[in-house]
């Protein structure tokens, strides 16, 4: 067995795992009735872009597309495919272990390059016909983004090692800003048709990233860190499913040792009754677990968008009722999930107090949800009305 075959085996295992995750969500009905039609529509749309650029691209400056690409290359991690058991077995075979990591690094770069290439292919009709870029410009941009991506992967690899949450966040934001400024600089050089500096800087960044990445990877000291990254990358699709469907399982929690809110275990309710006890546990668990409140805001934002965008009034009303039913069943689900996760409190869950607290807590979060939805829908509809007003005005001006 050599390092290549070990890496290949792990890659295959990971791909099979991701495929099984995909299949767990997309059974044949989803594939036939949703994914296949969606793919056909997407292909047809993409084909039409080659005939004529879509209307929506007209108001979008190329700098915005570039900025979005910059934001997108911050996704992903440097993969090594190191597993927990390697700490005991493979680590003893140093050349085998290190070469396996080299293959994994090489694969990460190729994988990211293919990802970027696909993004460019999708945008190609717009880049060529709408923004009227030359092939050389596009290739240079691709090269620059790939070199920057390899550098960002290295930076993220080191940033992840920082234990302190705020320090990590502050440093990550700082690096994001610095590299953003650097990208704007390169963008301006690129726009000025100074191609040599762009090529030189991209190649230098790429080479330095590879050298320092291999230096960071080819050591035993970061094994725990690499295992954590592998685990996170492996399960990220599952985490996404968990976020969308609470009934599937327990969502991920933060790495904090102490709470951010209600430090020193401060109470929410002064009056200590069993009902308040149940409600307080739910509220704290809900607020402190980001997957809960993210899903809550997602439900509100999706329904807000649907109510604002879809024109007939009866659909808006229908959407509001769908929102009420969806939010209610989701909240009840989250409540039960929080309580049933712990065997020790199972003895309390048959009590009346438990159900009274559940009704009250769900009702409170429902009211908050309705208030937020009303607020955002009002803002959305106002913006929509203003846009229509501006449209009518410009139409009238054109007529006159």
């Amino acid at each position, binding site marked *: 067995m050599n390092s290549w075959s070990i890496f290949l085996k792990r890659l295959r295992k990971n791909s099979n795992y991701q495929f099984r995750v995909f299949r767990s969500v997309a059974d044949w009905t989803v594939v036939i009735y949703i994914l296949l039609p969606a793919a056909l529509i997407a292909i047809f749309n993409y084909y039409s872009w080659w005939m004529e650029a879509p209307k929506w691209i007209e108001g979008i400056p190329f700098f915005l597309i570039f900025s979005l690409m910059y934001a997108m290359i911050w996704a992903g991690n440097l993969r090594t495919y190191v597993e927990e058991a390697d700490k005991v077995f493979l680590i003893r075979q140093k050349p085998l272990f290190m070469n396996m990591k080299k293959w994994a690094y090489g694969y990460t770069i190729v994988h990211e390059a293919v990802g970027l290439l696909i993004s460019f292919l999708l945008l190609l009709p717009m880049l060529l016909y709408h923004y009227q870029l030359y092939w050389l410009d596009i290739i240079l941009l691709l090269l620059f983004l790939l070199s920057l991506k390899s550098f960002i992967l290295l930076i993220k690899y080191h940033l992840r090692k920082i234990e302190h949450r705020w320090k990590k966040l502050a440093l990550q934001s700082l690096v994001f800003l610095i590299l953003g400024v650097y990208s704007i600089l390169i963008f301006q050089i690129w726009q000025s048709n100074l191609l040599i500096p762009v090529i030189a800087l991209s190649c230098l960044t790429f080479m330095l990233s590879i050298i320092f990445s291999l230096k960071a990877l080819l050591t035993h000291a970061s094994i725990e860190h690499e295992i954590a990254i592998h685990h996170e990358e492996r399960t990220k699709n599952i985490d996404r499913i968990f976020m969308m469907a609470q009934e599937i399982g327990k969502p991920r*929690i933060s*790495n*904090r*040792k*102490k*709470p951010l809110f*209600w*430090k*020193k*275990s401060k*109470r929410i309710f002064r009056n*200590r*009754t*069993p009902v*308040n*006890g*149940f409600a*307080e*546990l739910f509220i*704290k*668990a809900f607020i*402190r*677990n980001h997957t809960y409140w993210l899903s809550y805001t997602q439900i509100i934002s999706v329904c807000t968008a649907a109510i604002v965008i879809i024109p007939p009034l009866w659909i808006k009303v229908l959407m509001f009722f769908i929102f009420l039913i969806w939010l209610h069943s989701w909240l009840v689900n989250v409540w039960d999930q*929080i309580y049933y*996760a*712990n*065997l*020790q*409190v*199972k*003895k*309390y869950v048959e*009590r009346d*107090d438990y159900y009274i607290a559940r009704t009250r807590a769900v009702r409170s979060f429902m009211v908050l949800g309705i208030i937020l939805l009303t607020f955002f829908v009002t803002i959305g509809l106002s913006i929509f009305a203003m846009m229509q007003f501006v449209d009518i005005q410009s139409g009238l001006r054109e007529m006159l």
Partner: protein
Amino acid sequence: MNLLNVAIQNAGYEKDEPVIHDIHFSVSKGELIGLIGPNGAGKSTTIKTILGLLDHKAGEISFYNEASYSYIPERPIFYDELTLWEHLDFIAAVENRDDQAYKAKAEELLISYKLLEHAHEFPGKYSKGMQQKAMLILAMITEPDVYIIDEPFIGLDPNAMKLFLTSIEAERERGAAILMSTHVLDTAEKVCDRFLIIHQGELQAAGTLSEIRIQCQLPEGSLYDCFHTIAEGDAIE
């Protein structure tokens, strides 16, 4: 006075596939009973049946006059989003405990187990030993009539083990009945009043060490010798 009466005819995880059969015993006030047996013998299934966590059960589990109980699982379980103090606060609230009395008791336990300075941290982030201690505190805060403890010694350092045994002794003296599943036989032999030896889902021997020795035909044998005889399948006539 029997605080817990167990009369399991059979129980299991799947319908018509029982894992344990004919397990009958009771735990009296102030009594400490050791539930022992090899891996896969049915100890955890017995505990889960007592706690009402199995859907497929024939038989009866009864607590005397609605006696309260605390369960200490083998693997500590916490709410990831609550601090240790909030766990204690939650239990006190749902158990309708007097606020001042519960706070005093909580502080006393936290000081004894050296967790006071970590009380406002998430116990899910504690070390294994600290988590085990936190579980004990959460069980003791309500001063229950019955304790059901699954493998309490795993992860405890010698000092914590001593503290645990002292606390358990104090609870017995208070009148609590304790059912404790364990593999640490030498400790069990010293502290338990009676033993239940389970093997292949059935109660193979029960009683004091002297009674177990007679059942195993090992008049001078230790608890380990008796356990070994049963686990290795030497028939008990």
